[in-house]
C-alpha cells in the first residue's frame, strides 16, 4: 500500500475494525504495531511523517471550550505552523470562510457541535502541511459544511497534498483510494 503526492486514501471498516488506531499509527501517535511505515520511501527502522508536514485531526479536535474560535486557531497556528508568517487577519478570514462570522469572539462552549467542528476544520484553510490525516472530519457538519470541506480536500490534492481519512459519510465526490479494513481482518481460528 503506497500513496503518492496528490492522492488520497479512504479507510473504511466497521466500528472497532481499527480505523482510528491505523490513523494514529500513521500519524506517529502510537507505536503499538507490527509492520512498517515509510515516508518518502525511506527504509529507516522507525519512519514517521515529518511532524512539520503533518496535520492530524482526530475524534478529539483540540478545540478548547473556554477559548474563542480566534484564540483556538491562533494557538494552533503558533503550535503547528510556527515557522510560517500567518497573521491574525488571515486567521480571521479562514474562520469567516468556514462560516463563523459573528461567533469569532464567543467562547467555544457557547457554540454548537457543528460550529465547534468548523473551528477545528478551519485549520485546513490555513494549513501548509502536505499530509492531512482526518478522522471522521464530517461528524456533526451540515450538507454545506461537508461540501465545503470536500472542496477544500480537492484543492489540497490538486496542489500535490495527500489525504488519509475515515468517514461514515459517502465520499463519492472525492477521488480517494479505498482501503477496507474488513479485507485484512484476521480470520478467527
Amino acid at each position: 500500500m503506497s500513496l503518492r503526492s496528490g492522492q488520497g486514501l479512504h479507510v473504511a471498516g466497521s466500528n472497532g475494525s481499527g480505523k482510528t488506531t491505523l490513523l494514529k499509527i500513521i500519524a506517529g501517535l502510537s507505536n503499538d504495531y507490527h509492520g512498517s511505515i515509510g515516508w518518502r520511501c525511506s527504509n529507516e527502522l522507525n519512519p514517521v511523517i515529518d511532524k512539520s508536514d503533518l496535520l492530524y485531526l482526530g475524534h478529539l479536535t483540540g478545540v478548547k471550550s473556554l477559548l474563542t474560535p480566534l484564540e483556538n486557531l491562533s494557538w494552533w497556528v503558533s503550535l503547528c505552523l510556527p515557522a510560517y508568517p500567518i497573521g491574525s487577519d488571515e486567521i480571521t478570514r479562514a474562520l469567516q470562510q468556514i462560516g463563523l462570522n459573528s461567533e469569532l469572539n464567543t467562547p467555544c462552549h457557547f457554540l454548537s457541535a457543528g460550529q465547534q467542528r468548523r473551528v477545528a476544520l478551519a485549520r485546513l484553510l490555513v494549513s501548509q502541511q502536505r499530509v492531512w490525516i482526518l478522522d471522521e472530519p464530517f461528524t456533526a457538519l451540515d450538507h454545506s459544511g461537508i461540501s465545503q470541506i470536500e472542496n477544500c480536500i480537492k484543492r489540497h490534492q490538486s496542489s500535490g497534498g495527500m489525504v488519509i481519512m475515515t468517514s461514515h459519510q459517502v465520499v463519492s465526490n472525492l477521488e480517494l483510494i479505498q482501503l477496507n479494513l474488513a479485507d485484512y481482518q484476521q480470520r478467527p481460528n
Partner: protein
Amino acid sequence: MLVSANENFSSYRVFTAIFFRDLTVYFRYRGSWINPLFFILVVITLFSLGFGADNQALRVYSPSIIWVTALLAVLLSLDSLFKTDFDDGSLEQLILSSQSLYLSVLAKILAHWLVTGFPIVLATPLISLMLGVSLEVLPELSLGLLLGTGILSFIGAIGASLTVSLASGGLLLSLLSMPLYVPAMIFGAQYLQDAIAGWPLMPSLSMLIGLLLAAVVLSPLAIMAGLKLSVEA
C-alpha cells in the same frame, strides 16, 4: 545560522503560545486559581482548630503544617494540569507539533504553577498570621514556599502525565507522587524551621535550590514519555 535563528524563534513562539493560552484558560475558569488558595486556608484553619487553639504548639509545628498543606494543595490541583488537554485532544496536537515537546511541557507546568503555586506564595503573610509565625521571617518563608511549590509542581507533573488517561487518576497521582516528595518535604520543612528558629539557612536552602533545578531539568523527560503513552492508550 539563519536556520538555527529561525528554529529558536519557532521554539520561542510555541513556548509563549502554550504559556499564554493556558493562562487565558485558567483565568476564564476562576476556580483553577482560587480553589487551591481556598483549600490551603481551610486546611490551616482546621489544623488550628484541631490544635485546640494552642498558639504555642501551632507555632512549633507551623513549618510542617505549612508544608503538608502546600503539598496537598499542589497535588490536588495537578490533577487538572493535563486533564482538559487530554479530554479535548489538545494533547495530541501538542505531541504532534514539530517543535520540542520538552519546551511545551515546561510552558504548561510554568503556567500551571503561576496560578496554583504562586498564589500560595503570595498568601504567605496570611498563613503566617493564622499560625502565629513572626512576620520577621516572612521573606524567608516566602522564598521557601516559592522554591518548594515549584519542586512539588514539577515532580507531581510526572504522576499527572502517567495517570491522565485514567478515569479516576487523582488518588493514584497522590500515591505515586508522595514518595517522590519526601526530599522536598524534608528540606522544605527544615528550611522553614531554620528560618523561624534563626539558624543558618544555607544548607537547607541550597538543597532546595538543587532539588528545584534537578526537577526542572529532569522531570520533563519522564513527563514527555508519560504524555506519549497516555495519548496512545
